[in-house]
């Protein structure tokens, strides 16, 4: 669908292009109908009363009515029940949007005044555009390099704030091919309204073709491994326990016991914090002697290091993804895309529902 064809039409509703769109719209229609009913009822009642009981003589005092307990109870309880229904429906939808799907195409998004950068699991990068395959669950992990932004795709009915200093996530399944608007929805300064782009949903085959043609760097995990050795992380974080820092293989997704006796789930946010502010949540049994990497690595590099740590994931047999063999040499950047897909499909962020 060509976005310029919008020009001379007057749309009323945005396109439904994700798994959430239909139900969000249904909810919206329901609330709109409710609003119309209540507003018309109130306005009509007020107008009819005004005309019917208009003042006919100057000295007139109408008969006084104190109130009516039954009516008060009725118009307290009925709206309350209606609002509880609305609450429950809204909460159910929120729960669906909030709960990360297990298997999904993971894409890393960085917001920066005033552009959106995206990195695909195979290393393809794009700016102010995001190409997606039809019918695949997609999970976006996002952060900002400067101020607050928000990644908003009206056709998908999704929007998530992009916050510096933390990761936020969002997921959806595109259900209709086409080109859709990408807006920054959180005010971010002078060119806020210029921080827009395109979401391109393609048939899976077209998407594969696009992946092959798109400019490609090393996958995030490969780049992360280079950084890991380049920044000398591997001097302390050895392949097995015994280094000055904890061994990282298989750590992701587990519960880490901390110095103060509490535990923390090892997720992206914890890893990011431990890279930038190592003393904040110190693993039990280790000294607070790791230097901070704040200012030495960009947000995208942090994400790459995390992608690498995730890729050296579970090594115990049975828990590992099929065919995972994280210590094999990464493919050369010139490797044919098929190989690249397979490698990342097993090792890096993308899981087994990657089309083969």
């Amino acid at each position, binding site marked *: 669908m060509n976005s310029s064809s919008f020009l001379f039409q007057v749309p009323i509703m945005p396109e439904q292009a994700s798994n959430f769109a239909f139900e969000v719209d249904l909810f919206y229609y329901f609330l709109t109908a409710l609003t119309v009913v209540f507003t018309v009822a109130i306005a009509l009642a007020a107008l009819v009363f005004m005309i019917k*009981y208009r003042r006919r003589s100057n000295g007139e005092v109408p008969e006084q009515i104190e109130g009516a307990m039954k009516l008060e109870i009725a118009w307290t309880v009925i709206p*309350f029940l209606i609002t509880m229904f609305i609450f429950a429906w809204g909460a159910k*939808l*929120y729960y669906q949007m909030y709960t990360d799907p297990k298997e999904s195409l993971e894409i890393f998004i960085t917001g920066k005044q005033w552009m959106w950068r995206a990195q695909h699991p195979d290393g393809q990068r794009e700016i102010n555009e995001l190409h997606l395959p039809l019918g695949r669950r997609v999970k976006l992990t996002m952060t900002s390099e400067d101020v607050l932004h928000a990644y*908003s795709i009206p056709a998908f009915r999704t929007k998530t704030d992009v916050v510096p200093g*933390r990761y936020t996530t969002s997921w959806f399944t595109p259900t209709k091919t086409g080109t859709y608007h990408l807006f920054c929805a959180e005010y971010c300064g002078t060119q806020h309204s210029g921080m827009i782009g395109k979401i391109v949903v393609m048939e899976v085959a077209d998407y594969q073709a696009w992946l092959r043609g798109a400019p490609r760097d090393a996958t995030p995990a490969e780049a992360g491994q280079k950084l890991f050795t380049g920044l000398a992380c591997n001097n302390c974080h050895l392949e097995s326990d015994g280094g000055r820092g904890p061994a990282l293989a298989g750590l992701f997704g587990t519960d880490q016991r901390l110095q103060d006796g509490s535990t923390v789930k090892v997720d992206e946010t914890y890893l990011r914090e431990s890279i930038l502010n190592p003393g904040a949540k110190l693993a039990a049994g280790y000294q607070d002697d790791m230097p901070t990497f704040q200012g030495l690595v960009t947000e995208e590099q942090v994400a790459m290091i995390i992608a690498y740590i995730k890729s050296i994931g579970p090594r115990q047999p049975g828990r590992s993804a099929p065919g995972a063999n994280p210590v094999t040499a990464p493919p050369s950047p010139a490797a044919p895309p098929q190989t690249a897909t397979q490698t990342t499909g097993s090792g890096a962020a993308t899981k087994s529902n990657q089309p083969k």
Partner: protein
Amino acid sequence: MASEAMNKTEGSVNYLNAATTVKSWLLTLDHKRIGLLYLFAISFFFALGGMFATLVRLELVTPQGDLMSAEMYNRAFTMHGVIMIFFFLIPSIPAVLGNFCIPLMLGTKDVAFPRLNLMSWYVFMIGASLMMYTLISGGIDTGWTFYPPYSSIYSNSQVTIAGVSIFITGFSSILTGLNFMVTIHTMRAPGLTWFRLPLFIWAHYATALIMVLGTPVIAITVLALAFERTLQIGIFDPKLGGDPVLFQHMFWFYSHPAVYIMILPSMGVVSELIANMTRKRIFGYAFVAFSSLAIAVFGFLVWGHHMFTTSQSMYTGAVFSLISYAVAIPSAIKIFNWTATIYKGSVSFDTPMIYALAFLGLFTIGGMTGLFLAALGLDIHLHDTYFVVAHFHYVMVGGAIIGYLGGLHYWWPKMTGRMYPEIWGRVSAVIIFIGFNLTFFPQFVMGYLGMPRRYYAYVPEFQVYHILSSAGASILAIGFVMPVIYLAYSLKYGERVGANPWMASGLEWQTPSPPPTENFTYQPVITHEPYEFEHVEEIKAARKAEEIQMA
């Protein structure tokens, strides 16, 4: 100006002609004069805020940025929001109508602390002068929400000085709220028990509660922001070790209750208008009175509904959504009771009643669209779009400003001793109603389509809605200019009125218009509940006259 008009007339000494020097106004301790001082100040800010709205609506007629630069546009919408909220809406009804009416309604000479009352005005003017300085020295471009780290580190505009201005202005609000609370507790006339109070007083009591408890939090928040900006203390910016979401919690902890500071007094006004224009006791008086307090209390517990997309925990979101629905119920109760009050009343079609009716319709839409935004899964799509813009303008303009204008017309004869021209009052009320709907209704549709807030340029498919909105805004502007002209005209040429031109029931109508400086020449003693029209002398006289005519 007002006092000059009064001077030429015969008649007794009143608060306007008791002294006419500039000094007598600037050092007055009379709550009525202080109310008028606020009226001049906030009318100026309303006009200024309106000018910025005009700039915004003009720029948005075309999709591309053409009339002004992006920097200028961002300053225009920020100044519109900051001025309208902190320097018009928050002081509007409490500081003007509340100051003027509360002691009159309580049957007392003045507020509890008259000097503090005058000081509140000066504090407000100091804050306002700083905001004018902010404006002249370049303005601010952060949006009225001041979200860091943009506001604390990245913005090159006058954020610090604007923050200090809001910090100072907040004290004016706190002092006014404190004064009202003490006055209502301690200065009621003999016999004026809590359940004999007009609902205007109940609404202002609830408002004062929020002013006193909530305003210190915004003061702390802007101060923390100023410290981060000037001293690089890491509070909100993650680069300095802070948390930007912390700011949002602190900001909305005040700013959500603040919308109730703006709407509750308006609800109080509407209760007076409907009761007195239909000559009926408010249906379910106790429910309407307690719903004001319920709104004030629950209003403090819903701030998190501004942050559903900030990735706060799912359960936090659910709790805030649930309590937000709880706060919708008292508002609904009010709407139903007001509508029921009109039933079998003696309904006047004068301007104040037109405004009350407009309030009923517009506030219902404003409130109902709040249900959309409090719904977790739907707010994800609607957050930060024009749907939000439309919703809060329906509440703030359709609710707060409509109530303010209705109240201003209703008490105008009491304030000035002269009636405004009724026909112009009705015409302008209808023009405002039409212009308002044309301006903001299209924004609901545009918002659902995905048009984000605070966009200087936008994609062409939204243009139709922006043109409708800008056309509506120009009609709305005409509607707002008209009262300025005919109200000023009425100061000199308006028909003189007696103590009670509306044949209303309130205590304020039992003293001459305009009232003497000491409000009452006798000590009123209250023996009956509010809105008992059988006791109104003017109605008895009118009846007698009608009977004679019939005979």
